[in-house]
């Protein structure tokens, strides 16, 4: 249960600063498109609870990965996640962390409150929306099928 992905233990790591410098110069839109696609796929699989999704309607999100220089922006509108290519201003919710912290959180190796308390994860914006999203992620129960699809990607088919 602690690590349902059966991923290898993810240590806290920081990528070399060159990665972030290069990453920040690359176009960011593919990240936004990929993340929105992934979220819509999760929605289609039925792992995201409908009642919580309704509360996201019209809200605008940003995810920043510090040590890769990646920024993804998306919104939830008309019942699906859509990439945002031109920032309409301050997001309603902004998650910032290093890659290792995001991976630890997604793989359920670390608890998001712990990452927040020890300042590995920053959540800015609408606190209630942040709490709802956090609780939604916590409540996810991935169907076995979804794991099987995800594992090779995470593990580099190793």
């Amino acid at each position: 249960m602690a690590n349902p992905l059966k991923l290898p233990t993810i240590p806290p790591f920081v990528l070399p600063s060159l990665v972030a410098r290069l990453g920040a110069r690359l176009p960011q839109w593919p990240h936004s498109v990929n993340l929105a696609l992934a979220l819509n796929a999760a929605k289609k699989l039925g792992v995201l609870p409908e009642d919580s999704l309704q509360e996201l309607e019209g809200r605008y999100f940003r995810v920043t990965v510090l040590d890769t220089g990646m920024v993804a922006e998306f919104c939830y509108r008309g019942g699906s996640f859509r990439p945002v290519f031109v920032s309409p201003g301050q997001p309603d919710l902004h998650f910032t962390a290093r890659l290792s912290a995001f991976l630890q959180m997604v793989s359920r190796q670390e608890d998001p409150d712990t990452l927040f308390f020890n300042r590995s994860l920053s959540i800015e914006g609408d606190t209630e929306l942040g709490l709802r999203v956090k609780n939604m992620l916590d409540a996810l129960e991935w169907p076995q099928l979804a794991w099987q699809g995800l594992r090779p990607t995470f593990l580099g088919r190793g």
Partner: protein
Amino acid sequence: MAKPQLVCPAGSLAALKAAVDNGADDVYLGFRNDTNARNFAGLNFDDKSLAEGVRYAHQRGRKVLAAINTYAQAGRFADWTRSVDTAANLGIDVVIIADPGVLDYAAQTYPDMRRHLSVQASATSYEAVNFCREKFGIQRAVLPRVLTLAQVENVIRHTEVEIEVFGFGSLCVMNEGRCWLSSYATGESPNTVGACSPAKYVQWEKKPDEMDVRLNGILIDRYGNEENAGYPTICKGRFEVAGETYYAMEEPTSLNVIEMLPEIIRIGVAAIKVEGRQRSPTYVAQVTRNLRQALDAAFASPDSYKVKPVWAAELSKVAEGSQITLGAYNRPWR
């Protein structure tokens, strides 16, 4: 001497399964409304996840406890009785209640469903516990985290009601179940709306060198970039008092009793509770697994029991503020 039950929290079905899979005897949860004291956005159980959770726990021989532990608000008593009805209809084993009116309803309507006195009832003496036994037939009382271990023992000696104590999790300031500080700042408190420092009043503000946290505009704390943060409650804020800025009421720290488990078993505690229905399945799994191992070890050989470093390390990591304390259990003053 019986081994204390390990009572673990669940804010979602995933957390309930984590608790059961990692060795909880009992799992406690709340419904998606303000009848429980963790009424947070996106947390808790709807009817479908409840039915699945009860089935999952019962198949594995564990019990499910429903916290219906806020105080019924004027004109809305039916919302609380409906939660008791839901618990009974879904085959939940125990209701945890603080409000005397709700306790009375449960006792009259479902005499065979076990009733536990919630910590929110703030019963710290055996007289209070015995009163609730006499009037509402409670089988167990959860003691507030304000008593020393000797005081807990004294309560146990003078009552036939089972006594449950907190073993791990965030601490409440020394006025448990009353929660006036949140009310003062926001007009809302755990007992009235089911949340301390409701999220809609909380503002985290990141600046280049620091992060401020405010509750309804009141500055609670200001963290340096490397400093651990805590829950945004007034009782755990840093304030300027007589020219000094410090944790004037309570430090952001978690209770952890693993080092005193043999004593807790010896004095006859019936159950040990883990705080944290608002936390993730990861937290529930980590805390349950380590406490299960520690409790089994302490019960098997209390005299040679030693805290394993791995238990202490895993529990400290998930603690609020990454700090742990024995809280009131070993406070020298009364």
